[in-house]
């Protein structure tokens, strides 16, 4: 098995376990509490507004927005880590069909793995820090995944073209 495939398969399965473990931890220890807090904050905001206690209503609405901001990102992180892990595994099974030499394939695999880890990491770090660094990490990670994916699509197209030209077994040896 080539080094690029090994990297993708092992990283993909490890990331799948990590992403699902994160989801399990979140469901057990944080999700119900977050949903309860969101519901309570919003209801409290409107109830205080009904009493015409507007500063308290605004504070409760702010608490709702803050909890919702974190909740959306926590759920996104779980689904993106798990989804990207599946993509790594599936590419790990067929990466030899990407029509580049192994050195380039390994670089591509590394970029995919780094992007798949760092993009959701940047998203979840925004729950702790609203500054530019987590956002930049998320943008960089997603850009890495998109660039690598475009290169993989191009590689598949090259691989398919090479397969049509060459007899079986002669592909991807360049």
């Amino acid at each position, binding site marked *: *098995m080539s080094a690029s495939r*090994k990297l993708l*398969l*092992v990283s993909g*399965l*490890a990331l*799948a*376990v990590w992403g*699902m*473990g994160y989801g*399990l931890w979140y*469901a*057990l220890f944080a999700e*119900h*509490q977050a*949903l*309860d807090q969101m*519901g309570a904050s*919003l*209801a409290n*905001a*409107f*109830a205080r*507004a*009904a*009493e*015409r206690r*507007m500063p308290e*209503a605004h504070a409760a*609405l702010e608490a*709702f*927005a803050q909890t*919702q*901001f974190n909740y*959306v990102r926590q759920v996104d992180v779980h*689904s993106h880590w*798990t*989804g990207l892990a*599946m*993509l790594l*595994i*599936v590419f*790990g*099974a*067929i990466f030899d*069909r990407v029509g580049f030499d192994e050195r380039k394939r390994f670089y591509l695999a590394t970029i995919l793995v780094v992007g798949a880890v760092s993009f959701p990491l940047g998203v979840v770090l925004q729950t702790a820090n609203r500054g530019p660094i987590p956002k930049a990490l998320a*943008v960089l990670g*997603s*850009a890495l*995944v*998109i660039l690598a*994916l*475009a290169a*993989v*699509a191009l590689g*598949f*197209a090259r691989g*398919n073209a090479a*397969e049509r030209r060459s007899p*079986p077994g002669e592909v991807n040896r360049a």
Partner: protein
Amino acid sequence: MSTPNAIRRNAGAFAPLGPARLFSLGGITLIIGGMVFGDVFAVFVLHQNAGRIGQHLLAATQAVAAGDVGSVLAHFTSIGGFLENRGTKVDTHVHILDFGYLALLLALVQPYVALSASAKKLLAQIFLLGAVLLPVSVFLIHYVGLAYSPLRAIGWASIFADFGGLLVIVACVGELAGLWRYLRGPRPALAAEELRQDRSWPARVLLTGGTLLVLLGFLHGAYYAAANLYQHEARDTALLRAMMEDAAGNNLAAATQAVNAYGGLQGEKAVKIAAHAHIIEFGLLAILLAFVQRFVFLSERWKRRWVLVLLLGSVVLPVFVLLELRWGLVAGGIADMGGLLVVVSLSGMLVGVLRHTGRLDAGREAEP
């Protein structure tokens, strides 16, 4: 159609009730189940539920204007129930599908998992048990609630759902350990190498089409994150504030306008996220099905038809989900038809895989 030689070569990797067969059949069945559930949910629950949430939000703003705190809290309790109903059904749909994809992936890596046949089969059974237990339990959360629960915030259905998730994680850790043993130990020649080299027209089209769908989904997701995500969050809070303040100022017309705009915003968010998620998932599904084509025992013409139907449905559903913002329920209906095309195509392929397994088993029984 697979040749008799190819079928014989695949026989070892696709033994009766072996892990590869359990994962493949289980995976396709989970995906079909998840998609049918999603279609039923979209047609019979989603829009009706959103309408009820809107009605209660409007009633809550009227209660704010009237200064009726009890009524405000009662309406928000109802809204919480509707949101839980929607959320648990979305989670059920997403988890069934994702476990289906993961099962197909694990079927693919079985030749590289260096564990005994019985251990691999046990891991497959544990995975499938968890993959069914989690979504079924998540579905039941809304109906079971906290009845007889020993915990304050988590009911029995959630506990079983979490246990299902744990089973899936345990199975994946086992598969990872088996893969690690394979990479560290002597590596036998694998029949699976041939599987990866399937160069048939259906496999190539699914592979290329699937990668392009995933890429499109990523580009759409990046655009959504850059252009819409933060703007939507800001508008969300601003509209809620407007509802609250207008109602408290007895300006019910403006509050009603804010409620309607809030409903529109929730719809916009939902369709954009759904389009992003569906196009990527269908891309992944297409790539995965490229590997399964060798096990689809149908004529070449029918294999090509199912591939085209799948790719057509994979484009129609997310595109028309997005168009719901402009065309409303008409686009929603067409999107549901796209989902149905994918389900029909998958069912056709599942029939082909079942025919393949039947042929393998019949061949084994005929051997002296």
